């Protein structure tokens, strides 16, 4: 099974309201969501510490596209997720992302040029695909046009894949 990993930079203020203008209901939902995420994370031995601001994840997303081109997708993906959620990595910091790339053996020098050129273009194209796919949040899996939103929908996705005869 091949998963096409598509970085989608969610517009948090658009989806969940901006920090200054969120109403009480929106805050309740966000607080619950983080509590729920930590509950799941604890079961899996993962650390999820709430971010202290709304981050722009586009640099990290382009870093992922670059790492994938160099055949280092998982090494990059694992490190960025884990460190961001431990508050050990600022995903808006280009040097921080470059350091992750260097750590996994990817030349960060060429990344800087990619970040300002081709990488931005590729990320914009993925955002357009997301719009065409009517993506409204993450994680969203799409198989044969059917959408599964949320990690807790993976069991339903598995049922779909099994019904397609794709179970090994």
């Amino acid at each position, binding site marked *: 099974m091949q998963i096409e990993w598509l970085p989608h930079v969610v517009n948090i203020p658009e989806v969940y309201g901006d920090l200054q203008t969120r109403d009480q209901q929106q805050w309740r939902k966000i607080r619950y969501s983080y509590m729920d995420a930590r509950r799941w994370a604890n079961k899996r031995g993962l650390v999820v510490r709430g971010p202290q601001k709304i981050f722009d994840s586009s640099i990290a*997303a382009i870093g992922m596209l670059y790492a994938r081109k160099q055949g280092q997708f998982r090494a990059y993906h694992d490190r960025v997720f884990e460190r961001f959620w431990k508050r050990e990595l600022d995903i808006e910091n280009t040097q921080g992302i470059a350091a992750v790339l260097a750590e996994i053996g990817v030349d960060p020098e060429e990344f800087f040029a990619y970040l300002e050129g081709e990488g931005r273009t590729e990320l914009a194209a993925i955002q357009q695909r997301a719009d065409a796919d009517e993506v409204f949040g993450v994680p969203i899996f799409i198989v044969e046009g059917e959408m599964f939103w949320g*990690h807790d929908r993976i069991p339903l996705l598995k049922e779909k894949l099994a019904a397609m005869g794709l179970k*090994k």
Partner: protein
Amino acid sequence: MGQRPADVRGRSTDAELTGWDASGYQLSRARRHHQATDGDAARSDIRDAAKRRSLLAHVKKESGMETKPIKLYFDYKSPFAYLAKDEAYQLEEDYQ
């Protein structure tokens, strides 16, 4: 006709399952019935494995069942995308 080897006794051949022969043509009902006999099943067991894979791939393609990639939209600033990561890796291992 010889006995079907013990390790495949009772199994259906790919052609029986799919109704298509190795060259991609649909089998007639009579031929499918004939192929279901032990002797022919035993012969089918020694078919070239590559031909069988090719047949199944052809049938899947014809029926729209060929493997298609799953799209996964994620964002590093989503804790729920983080929670989905390892399970998504596992999907890549467990499904073809």
